[in-house]
């Protein structure tokens, strides 16, 4: 009886683990697709310009903080 129960728990664990791997893979696939869409395909000049501008602003902020220290 105990052996049967242990077997069933083991089986259920294996099933859960297989299920988790499957869900993980699907999620990874979807995230990759959306990541590529956002950061590669639609990474327009308008957005890149904004990133450059923000980079300059962060530089200025760090300079300001350093100058106050």
């Amino acid at each position, binding site marked *: 009886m105990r052996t049967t129960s242990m077997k069933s728990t083991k089986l259920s664990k294996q099933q859960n*683990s297989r*299920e*988790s*791997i499957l*869900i*993980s893979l*699907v*999620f*990874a696939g*979807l*995230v990759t*697709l*959306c*990541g590529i*869409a*956002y*950061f590669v*395909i*639609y990474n*327009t000049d*308008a*957005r890149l*310009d*904004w*990133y450059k501008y*923000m980079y300059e*602003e*962060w530089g*200025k*902020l760090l300079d*300001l903080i350093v100058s106050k220290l």
Partner: protein
Amino acid sequence: MILFVVWILLNCLMLLSIDLLSFKLGRKAWHRFVSTFLMFYAQIVFTQFFLGLVHQLDTIQLLVVNAVISSLLLFYLLRKKPQQLLRRYGRQWASSLRSVTRDVRTDWLYIALLVVTGLISLWTIFLGLVFPVIDWDGNAYHMTYIGYVFQNHHIFDTFTNLAWIAGYPKGGEFIQMWNVLIPRNDILADLAQVPFAILGVYSLYYISTRLGVAAKHARFSSLAFLLLPIVINQMKTTYVDVLTSSLFIAGIALTLKSRYGRLDFLLLGIICSLLLSIKSSGLIFVAALVPLFLWKLWRQNKDESIAKLKTFAWQLGLVALPLIFGAYWYVKNLFLYGTPLYPFGIKVAGIQLFPGKTFEEFLGPVMDGFTQLPKGCLERVWFTWTEQERWSGCLYNYDSTFAGLGPVWFVILLPAAILGIALAIWKKNYLFLYISAVAAAVFALHPFNFYSRYTLFIALVGIIGFGLVLTHITSLARTVSKVSVILLALVVAFTNLTLCYFTVDAIRMQWRSLKDPALVGETFYAVNPGKAYIFMSRTAEPGDVVAYGNVYFIYPLWRADYKNSLVYTPADKDVHSWLESLRRSNATYVFTDKTSKEHAAAAEAQLKTIYEDDLYEVYKVE
């Protein structure tokens, strides 16, 4: 400064009395938080509403009424064995804090995300404290309404040029007004949405745990609400969209309770009342909450006999009671302007029920005018969510037409929403499916759903979905996902440093102007709303009357201490009658937009110019 300290002490007294009440009613965790939160804002809103109705809405009256209410409540709660109650209350707080610290202490990924979101929020609060109100709608109508309350001590409509001041529901303004009326300054007016962002996060956490998400993952995913650029940008404004979405999410959370108590009915009524009173689209949100509420109510009462119908009526009455405030704005508009949604009309199936342009007719041509926007509904959503264009030179701002909900939404939460729904179908998680369907229906019904500030609530599907996904994936995938969110949170922090307007140079200059007010002419405020407004608010003496005509920004015409008055004097007839109306209203100055009829009339009347720039001209009335 004294009033500011008094206001803080009053807030502490109100929160203590209400939280003690929640504690005594046996409410725990999120339910205690939400009851304290909502009853606190209900007290604020209803006392202002009542005082405004009787023309007594001013600093001292508001202060005294709330101090008396809270003191009486505290006295009532502490009338029997006060020390014992306070000791239990203190012990409960300490044990809650200990339990939170214990849970979080070893969760490094959560701590990392908490630090990033905390720093972003603190930065926004810092900008809110340092800069005055600069947002477009705030200076046009949100804050103008508050200025008029200072001037008139009532909440009724004032004769003015903007239909938004007169007609639009004013629940949001009532919440902002609390930060202004007692301290008698507007430093905290544009941070009024911050507590509501916290309400949104905690409510998302609660919903997630109710739907089977492990607490550890629910707490992580719910923080993503603070990583939506529109939430970050709006936290330093007098806009009301974060407020609306957070209340909607809290409403969903409240309807999920397995058995409603009397207080829950009242709280639901408060949520619906606030939703209705903030903006007309609140009607859609309230309608979306009704089916689940009615279903739960039916389940709760189905075993009761017909004789218990009274209980049912009593329960509905508790919901309806706070709705008086929400309904007031629509009834008032119907009587005064002939349409409950003024300045909008209502059309159903092509039949005009109430006069005026519908919301869609009003905003549609504006949106169609943007050549960058695709024409199709789904294409528009895709265009904004992929964030391909800048708006007013910025990728993000508080009212961005072209930006979506940021990279965390698009890269993590959107896939999580899709997978979460699939998982819910697979695992028969009907409640999550229902909530997703409700959110999707409201999203689909909204005529401008691509506009992220109107539909930021859709993030709830992604946030809960992400929690569900985290609960079902392998530990390696979970760690990778959480690290990805933290990295994307850094991207959000990186791209939202200036909130569009507050460049490092602007911050430096603003900081210097706080020490030396003579420098205010070189700050961002001199650009928006403009130097003319700085001139006007500084030139007007206490008791002076500033007349204005067709201008959009009205609020900045008041002095910082609100001791001058404003009057709307349109030049819609001949110059003589306009001059007569200026005399009748004892106008001291006339503030004009150079394209307005008032400007032409002032020139014709040869009023004395005391200030002029490219956009505005100010005259002295002698």
